[in-house]
């Protein structure tokens, strides 16, 4: 579904991604793990078009993504739940969800989507008329996820949903994501620093270090790998 080949990108002259290749098949849950500064967020921004690549290619559902203007990419079925949540603070929860549903499919499925989102993330229903900027970090993260789901995406990209949250809140959000995926069968691409949790729930994983994919495999292979165990899992 999403095919990234030899992608290089960076800010000004400093390269952040160096020939990264990643493959996400329909229905898969793929995790990309790695330390701070490995280029995970830049990778997502390149997929969404905020960062222009200096080399390589991205195709989504057979479409050459780099030829599609950034605001059109959401309409192809890519939902980006950004790092640090980035909800619209002066809009209400409901309005934030409506912004998620700017895509044609999001508009078409609005009723069904909103019911499912409220079922999965009931706190959004309780607070639907509250301004997003006045909510806690965990609630904002749930809103960011709900906003992504409201577009009826084919691919949900999650950039560190646990960032800056209390461990128990992060656990809860992980558990919700797994439940959403179990019920919907949605294709997910997750970037995460909580390596153990990410690898445990994903089908397939990539380890990104300093702009290179240093390791890839299904979750058993990765979790059995010595380097991963030492560097990320603390075993």
């Amino acid at each position, binding site marked *: 579904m999403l095919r990234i080949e030899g992608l290089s990108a960076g800010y000004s002259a400093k390269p952040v991604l160096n020939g990264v290749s990643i493959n996400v098949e329909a229905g898969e849950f793929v995790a990309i793990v790695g330390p701070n500064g490995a280029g995970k967020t830049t990778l997502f921004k390149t997929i969404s078009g905020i960062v222009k690549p200096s080399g390589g290619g991205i195709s989504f559902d057979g479409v050459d993504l780099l030829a599609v203007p950034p605001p059109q990419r959401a309409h192809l079925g890519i939902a980006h739940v950004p790092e640090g949540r*980035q909800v*619209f603070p002066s809009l209400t929860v409901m309005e934030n969800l409506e912004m998620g549903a700017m895509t044609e499919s999001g508009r078409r499925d609005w009723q069904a989507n909103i019911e499912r989102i409220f079922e999965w993330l009931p706190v959004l229903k309780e607070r639907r008329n509250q301004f997003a900027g006045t909510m806690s970090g965990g609630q904002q993260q749930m809103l960011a996820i709900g906003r992504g789901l409201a577009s009826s995406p084919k691919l949900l990209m999650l950039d560190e949903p646990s960032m800056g949250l209390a461990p128990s809140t992060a656990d809860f959000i992980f558990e919700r994501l797994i439940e959403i995926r179990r019920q919907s069968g949605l294709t997910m691409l997750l970037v995460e620093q909580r390596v153990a949790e990410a690898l445990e729930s994903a089908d397939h994983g990539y380890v990104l270090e300093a702009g290179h994919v240093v390791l890839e495999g299904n979750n058993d292979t990765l979790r059995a790998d010595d380097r991963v165990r030492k560097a990320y899992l603390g075993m």
Partner: protein
Amino acid sequence: MEGFLQALAAGLLIGAVYGLMCVGLGLIFGVMRVINFAHGDFMMLGMYVAFYLFTAVGIQALFGNTVGPFVAILLAGPALAVFGYFVHLALISHVSGTRTASLEGEGHYAQLILTLGIALILQNGGLIIFGSVLASIRTPLSSSAWELGPFFDMSIFLNKARSIDAIVSLAIMTLLSLLITRTRIGKSLRAAADNPTAATYMGIDVDRAHRTAFALGCGITAVAGGLLATNYPFHPFVGLEYVIVMYAGVVLGGMGSIIGAFWGGMTIGLVQQMSTLILPTQLQNAAIFAVFLLIIFFRPQGFFGRMVERT
């Protein structure tokens, strides 16, 4: 007491038009974060468009002297919106929006120079085309009044033209706030203002949202300008006088708050009229800025501004 009520009434009427004028600028600043120095000159252009629509294009003959000016003024709005749309497309979009999002200072320096340049071109171009003679959109309503009262032996006189100006302003303001709060376009403008990057992730074309806001802002201020012109004569450099008031209104209302800009403009209208009770007319504008400083001293974020940084 009678003088006070009279000044209050006059302040509310002119305040509504000032409010509308400020909202045009507030919309542009709120959505785009662009400091538009040329905004007063867009308003000047709106005044002349309304003037010529009324006198030269036949609206006077068609609608007469009473209704005609307001028809012309309302038509100047869409005309300036179209003009603003193309100014953004051809010039402003090159130094704002996604094109400069990654630059240091988000292209603000280039924006300052560009909008100042546009202001100069409009002012001097206006001088060449329209000449330096004072113009005004006169209607018989400008020199007649409605009498309210008498209440307890006191009567308040409301200038008919200014009253209609205020009503038109409030009507447009109501429509605008419905547009901003209720419609998909309005919500996407607010989303683009809140967080342009996240708005792009939602599939919102941020540059197009900016163009919409710029066109709307120009159209709204043009109408406000036309309304002012029913009572105040104007000339090609009139924009300079008003742009300062506009910025004061936007800052008072709270930078970035669209509805706040209306109340900022309203405050300025009230202060300006009330100050005539105790100060000579020449000090009207000084009074505005004395009150402005006072309010900003106690409430630096303005009436509706948020203290938090936008994310």
